[in-house]
C-alpha cells in the first residue's frame, strides 16, 4: 500500500506486511512462554495470573522443550553477531520506551493502537540488517537483562489493566537496574527524546516494548477465549491455517523449535522499531484503539528460519530426555466371528507433568492406533515432521486370529503386532513435537476414544491411499526441483541408499531367521531319532546316555527356536520398522518439495502480475493500475509467505532428520545389546546343558 514512503531506515522489500503483524505476535508468544516459566523462579507472587489465565496447570509449559528458552536467548545473543546487533537494538528499545513512559504518560494509550498499526503499514526488515547505532555494546547484556525482567514482570501487570501496567513496568525498570545502568539509562532516556527527529533508529524504537507487552497482555486475555488448553495452542496451531487463527504458526514455532527463539526475539524488536515512526502520528488516535486488536487475524510466520548450524541443532537434540514409558500388553480378542477385533492395554508410566497422573492405562483397539496416525499425519506431515508409521493392517493375519482358536502362527502374529504397536507408540512420544499433540495425550490418557473412522474399511481407505500415493508419485515426477541445499541433496540420496541397504539386510535377516527355524526343526528330528536309538540300545549306560542326549538336543532345539524369535524381533522387525520410517522420512522430503513448488509457483505468478502492471503502465491505463498493484502486493505477500514456509519446513525436516538419525543409531545400538544378551544367554544355557551331559557320556562303560 502507500506506506512504502514511510519506511524506516533499514530498507527492504516492502512486501511483508502480513508477516509483520504475525511477527509481533510471534514475539509476544515467545514472551508469554518465557515469562510464565521464568516468573515462577523470579517472583512467586506473579505466578498467580498466568495460572488463572490458563486452565491447564502451568507445569505443562515447563515440561515443554520451551523451558529451554529461558537460558537460550542470552547465550545466542552472545554468540551470533546479527543477534548482538539486535540486542543492541533491544537495549535501546526498552530504555527508550521507558523514557517515553516516564515523560509522557499518555503513551499508555497509544500503545494498544500500535498493535493495530502494523496491519496498515507495510514494512519489512530482515533480521540482522537493522543495526542500531544508538548504544554501545557493553550495555548489551544489561539491556537483555532488563528486557528479561521486563518480560517476566509484565504479564502480571498486564492482567491488572493497561494504565497500571505502563507505570508498573517503568518502575520495574528503575528498580532492577544498578547504578551504572541507571546512568546509562538516563542517557538513553534523554537521547531518544532529543534525537527523535534526527535519528530514526532510537526514536523509532520508542514504544515498541510496550507494544510487545500489550500484546502479551492481550494475548493472555484473548487466548482463554479462543482456546482453553495452552498446550493445545502450542501443538495444534501449526496445523491450523495461518491466516485464520492468531499467533498460530508463531506459537507453534516457539513451542517446538526453540532454536528460533533468538530469531523471535530479534524479530520482535526489529519490527517494533519499525512501528515507532508511526508512533507520533498515531498517538492521537491512540484512545480509539482497543486492547483486543492484536488478536486480529495474523498471517503466517515472517521470520527467516534460523540459519543455525548443524552442530547447534545436534547439540539441542541431545538435551531431550523423556521420562515416559509406554507398554502395550494383554492383546485380547473382543467379539466373535468376522467382527472380532484385538484390543490392547496401553499402559503409560511417566513423571512428565503434562499428564494427569504418573501411571494410567487405557484399552485401545488396532484401528485406534491407525486413527492416531491419521490424525497426526493430517496435522503434522505438512510441517515436515517425521511421523512414525503404525504397523500395517494384515487381513490374512487378522483373519487367522478371528477364525483360528489357538493356532501358533496366529499367536505369533498377535505378539508381533503387539510389539510393533509398542514400538510405534514409543517412537511417537519420543518425538518432542508429537508428544505435545493433544491427540497423543488423549490417546494415552482418555478412557474412551471416539471410534476411529476410515481405518476400518481397509479396502476403501487403502484404495484411496493408493490413489493418493499414485498422484503423489506423479506430482513428484513432474516437480523438478533444483536442490540448492547441499545437506538436503546429500541426505535425500543417503536416505534412498539406506532404504535399499536396509531392504537387503532385511532379506538376509529373514533368511537367517528361516535357517534358524530350520535348524530348530532339524534338531528336533535328530533328538527324536537319537531317542529311538537310545531306546533300542542294549548297553544300559549307552542307552541312558543316548536318551540324555536326546533331551539335551530337545533343549537345544528350544534354544534355537528362541534365538530365531530373537533374530526376528530384534532385527527383522527393527529393519522392517526402519524401512517404513525411511519411507516417512522421504515423505518429509516430499512435503518440503511441495512447499518449494508452492513458492516457485507464487514467484512465477508474481512475475506475471508485474509484467501485467508494466503493460498497464505502458498502456497508460490508470484505472486498472491500482488493481494490478494490489494484486502484486498480494502475490508478493504470498511469495514471502511461501518462501518462509519452505524455509521453515526445511528447517523442521532437517532437524527432524537429524533427530531421526540419532534415534536410529541409538535404537540399533539398543537392539544389538539386546541381541547380544540373548546370544550370550543361549550360549550360557548351552554350556549348562553340555556340562550336565558330559558325566553321562563318561559313565558309559
Amino acid at each position, binding site marked *: 500500500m502507500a506506506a512504502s514512503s514511510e519506511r524506516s531506515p533499514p530498507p527492504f522489500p516492502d512486501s511483508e506486511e502480513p508477516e509483520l503483524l504475525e511477527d509481533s505476535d510471534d514475539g509476544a508468544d515467545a514472551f508469554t512462554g518465557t515469562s510464565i516459566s521464568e516468573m515462577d523462579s523470579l517472583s512467586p507472587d506473579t505466578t498467580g495470573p498466568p495460572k488463572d489465565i490458563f486452565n491447564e496447570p502451568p507445569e505443562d509449559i515447563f515440561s515443554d522443550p520451551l523451558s529451554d528458552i529461558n537460558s537460550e536467548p542470552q547465550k545466542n545473543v552472545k554468540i551470533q553477531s546479527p543477534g548482538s546487533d539486535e540486542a543492541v537494538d533491544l537495549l535501546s528499545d526498552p530504555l527508550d520506551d521507558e523514557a517515553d513512559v516516564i515523560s509522557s504518560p499518555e503513551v499508555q494509550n497509544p500503545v494498544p493502537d500500535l498493535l493495530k498499526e502494523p496491519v496498515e503499514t507495510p514494512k519489512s526488515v530482515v533480521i540482522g540488517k537493522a543495526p542500531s547505532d544508538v548504544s554501545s555494546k557493553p550495555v548489551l547484556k544489561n539491556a537483555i537483562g532488563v528486557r528479561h525482567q521486563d518480560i517476566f514482570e509484565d504479564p502480571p501487570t498486564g492482567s491488572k489493566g493497561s494504565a497500571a501496567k505502563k507505570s508498573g513496568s517503568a518502575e520495574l525498570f528503575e528498580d532492577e537496574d544498578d547504578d551504572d545502568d541507571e546512568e546509562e539509562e538516563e542517557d538513553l532516556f534523554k537521547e531518544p527524546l532529543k534525537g527523535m527527529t534526527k535519528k530514526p533508529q532510537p526514536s523509532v524504537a520508542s514504544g515498541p516494548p510496550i507494544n510487545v507487552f500489550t500484546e502479551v497482555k492481550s494475548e493472555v486475555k484473548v487466548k482463554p477465549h479462543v482456546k482453553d488448553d495452552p498446550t493445545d495452542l502450542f501443538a495444534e496451531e501449526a496445523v491450523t491455517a495461518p491466516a485464520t487463527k492468531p499467533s498460530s504458526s508463531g506459537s507453534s514455532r516457539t513451542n517446538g523449535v526453540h532454536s528460533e527463539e533468538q530469531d523471535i526475539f530479534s524479530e520482535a524488536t526489529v519490527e517494533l522499531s519499525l512501528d515507532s515512526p508511526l508512533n507520533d502520528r498515531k498517538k492521537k488516535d491512540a484512545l480509539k484503539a482497543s486492547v483486543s486488536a492484536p488478536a486480529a487475524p495474523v498471517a503466517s510466520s515472517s521470520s527467516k528460519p534460523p540459519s543455525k548450524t548443524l552442530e547447534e541443532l545436534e547439540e539441542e537434540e541431545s538435551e531431550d530426555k523423556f521420562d515416559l514409558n509406554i507398554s502395550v500388553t494383554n492383546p485380547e480378542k473382543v467379539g466373535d466371528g468376522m467382527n472380532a477385533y484385538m484390543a490392547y492395554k496401553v499402559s503409560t508410566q511417566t513423571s512428565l507433568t503434562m499428564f494427569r497422573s504418573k501411571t494410567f492405562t487405557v484399552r485401545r483397539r488396532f484401528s485406534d492406533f491407525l486413527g492416531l496416525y491419521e490424525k497426526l499425519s493430517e496435522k503434522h506431515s505438512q510441517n515436515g515432521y517425521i511421523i512414525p508409521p503404525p504397523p500395517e493392517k494384515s487381513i490374512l493375519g487378522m483373519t487367522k486370529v478371528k477364525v483360528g482358536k489357538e493356532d501358533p502362527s496366529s499367536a505369533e502374529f498377535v505378539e508381533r503386532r503387539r510389539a510393533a504397536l509398542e514400538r510405534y507408540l514409543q517412537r511417537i512420544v519420543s518425538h518432542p513435537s508429537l508428544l505435545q499433540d493433544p491427540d497423543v495425550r488423549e490417546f494415552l490418557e482418555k478412557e474412551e476414544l471416539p471410534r476411529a473412522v476410515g481405518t476400518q474399511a481397509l479396502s476403501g481407505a487403502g484404495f484411496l491411499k493408493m490413489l493418493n500415493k499414485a498422484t503423489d508419485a506423479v506430482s513428484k515426477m513432474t516437480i523438478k526441483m533444483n536442490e540448492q541445499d547441499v545437506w538436503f541433496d546429500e541426505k535425500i540420496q543417503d536416505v534412498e541408499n539406506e532404504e535399499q541397504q536396509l531392504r537387503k539386510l532385511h532379506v538376509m535377516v529373514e533368511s537367517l531367521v528361516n535357517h534358524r527355524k530350520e535348524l530348530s526343526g532339524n534338531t528336533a528330528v535328530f533328538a527324536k531319532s537319537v531317542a529311538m536309538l537310545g531306546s*533300542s540300545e542294549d548297553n544300559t549306560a549307552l542307552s541312558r546316555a543316548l536318551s540324555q542326549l536326546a533331551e539335551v538336543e530337545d533343549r537345544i532345539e528350544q534354544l534355537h527356536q528362541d534365538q530365531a524369535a530373537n533374530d526376528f524381533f530384534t532385527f527383522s522387525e527393527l529393519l522392517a520398522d526402519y524401512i517404513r520410517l525411511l519411507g516417512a522420512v522421504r515423505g518429509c522430503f516430499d512435503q518440503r518439495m511441495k512447499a518449494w513448488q508452492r513458492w516457485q509457483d507464487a514467484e512465477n505468478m508474481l512475475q506475471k502480475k508485474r509484467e501485467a502492471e508494466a503493460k498497464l503502465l505502458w498502456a497508460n491505463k490508470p484505472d486498472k493500475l491500482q488493481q494490478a498493484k494490489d494484486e502484486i502486493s498480494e502475490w508478493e505477500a504470498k511469495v514471502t509467505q511461501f518462501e518462509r514456509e519452505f524455509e521453515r519446513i526445511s528447517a523442521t525436516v532437517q532437524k527432524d532428520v537429524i533427530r531421526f538419525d540419532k534415534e536410529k543409531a541409538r535404537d*540399533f545400538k539398543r537392539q544389538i545389546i539386546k541381541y*547380544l544378551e540373548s*546370544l550370550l544367554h543361549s550360549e550360557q544355557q548351552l554350556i549348562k546343558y553340555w556340562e550336565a551331559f558330559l558325566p553321562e557320556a563318561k559313565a558309559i562303560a
Partner: protein
Amino acid sequence: MEGSSAESALSVSADSIRITDLTQDGDVLTFAITSQKLNSSAGVCVFRAYEDFEWLQQSLFSQENVPGLQGIIFPPLPPKALPLQSNMQTKALKQLGFLALGQDWQGYCKALEFYLQQVATHPTLCKCKALDSFLINSESPGKQRGRKGIFNRLSQAVEEMRKESHKDVDNFFQNERNKNTNIAALSKVATEKLIDVVMTEQKLALACGHFSTSLHLCVNQDDAAAVAFSKVCLKLSDIIEAVKQNFEKVASNNLTTLGLGLDLESRYQEAEKEMLFRRTCKLIELETVKKSTEKAKANKREVMEEFQKAVEKEFSLISSVAKEEIERFHSSRVNVLKNVLIGWCEQQLNTAKECAELYSQHLEACRNMYSE
C-alpha cells in the same frame, strides 16, 4: 589258527597307522599312509588310491585257509569318494553321507584311517598278507583288480529279500539279527538327521557371512549421526561374524566327532548285518543239504551224510566265530561311541565357552560404544 607263523604277518604297529596327506589329481584321490615298524623306530610311508583299498578289502574277503571266515565282521570300507564336481554335491552326500562333508576330505581320510586300524587290530584279519603288503610295499599292489567275490553286494541284494527273513535255529542269532536290523536302520536315520543339522548350521554360517558383509555396506561417514550408526553397523557385523564362526565350529564339531561316529556305527551295523546274512545263507544251505540227505537214495546217502557233516561243521565254525565277533564288536562299538560322545561333548562345551566369552566381550564393547 595257524598261530605263530602268521603272527609276524603284520610288521607295523596297528596304532601307528595314519593317513597323513591327500592329493587330488583330477578324479583320483591319493592317500599318504604312514605307519611305524614294529621293533624299530623306522616309519613307512606309502601312497594308495581308493582302488588299492578296494583290493585290500577283496583280499580280506577271499582269504583262504581261514576257517569261519564268513563269520567275521569285516571292517566296513567307506564307499568310493568322487572328487566334487559341481552337480555331484547332492549325489556324493547321498553316497557318502558325512564323509562328503567337511574340508578337504578330512572326514573321509579319518574314516579310511579308522578302517585300516580296525583291520590291523582285528585278531584274524591282521594276519592277512595283503594287509602287510598294502602298508609296506611302496609299489601299488592293487593293479590287478580283485575279482568280484562272493560277497558282491549286487547279488546279495537279490538274495537278501528271500533269505533275510529266514528263521534262525539259534535264538541268540535270531535276536541279534532283529536287533541289528533295528539299530542299523535307526543309526542310519540318526546319521541322516545329524547331516541335516550340520548342513543347516553350515547354511546359517553362510547366511551370517552374507549378513555381516552387507552390514559393511551401510557404512557412511557423512555426519556425526551417520558415523555413530556406521559404528553400530560395524559392531553388529563383528558380532554376526562371531556368530558365524560359532556356527562353523559347532558344525565341524558335530561333523568330526559325532558325525563320524554315527557314520561308522551305521556302517559297522551294515557290516554285521552282512556277516549275519552270510551265516544265514550257510544255514539255509545246511538245511537244504539236510533235506536232500533225507530224500537221498541209500546208495547216495552216505556221500550226502558226509557232505552234510562237512557243511554242519562249517556252519558251527562260522557260528562260533560269529559269536566271538559279535561280542567283540559290541564292546568295541560301545567304546567307540563313548569316546565319540565324550569328545563331542567336550568340543561343544569348549566352543560354547569360547563363544560365550567372545559374546560377553562384544557386549562390553557395545555397552561402552559411543557412550563416551
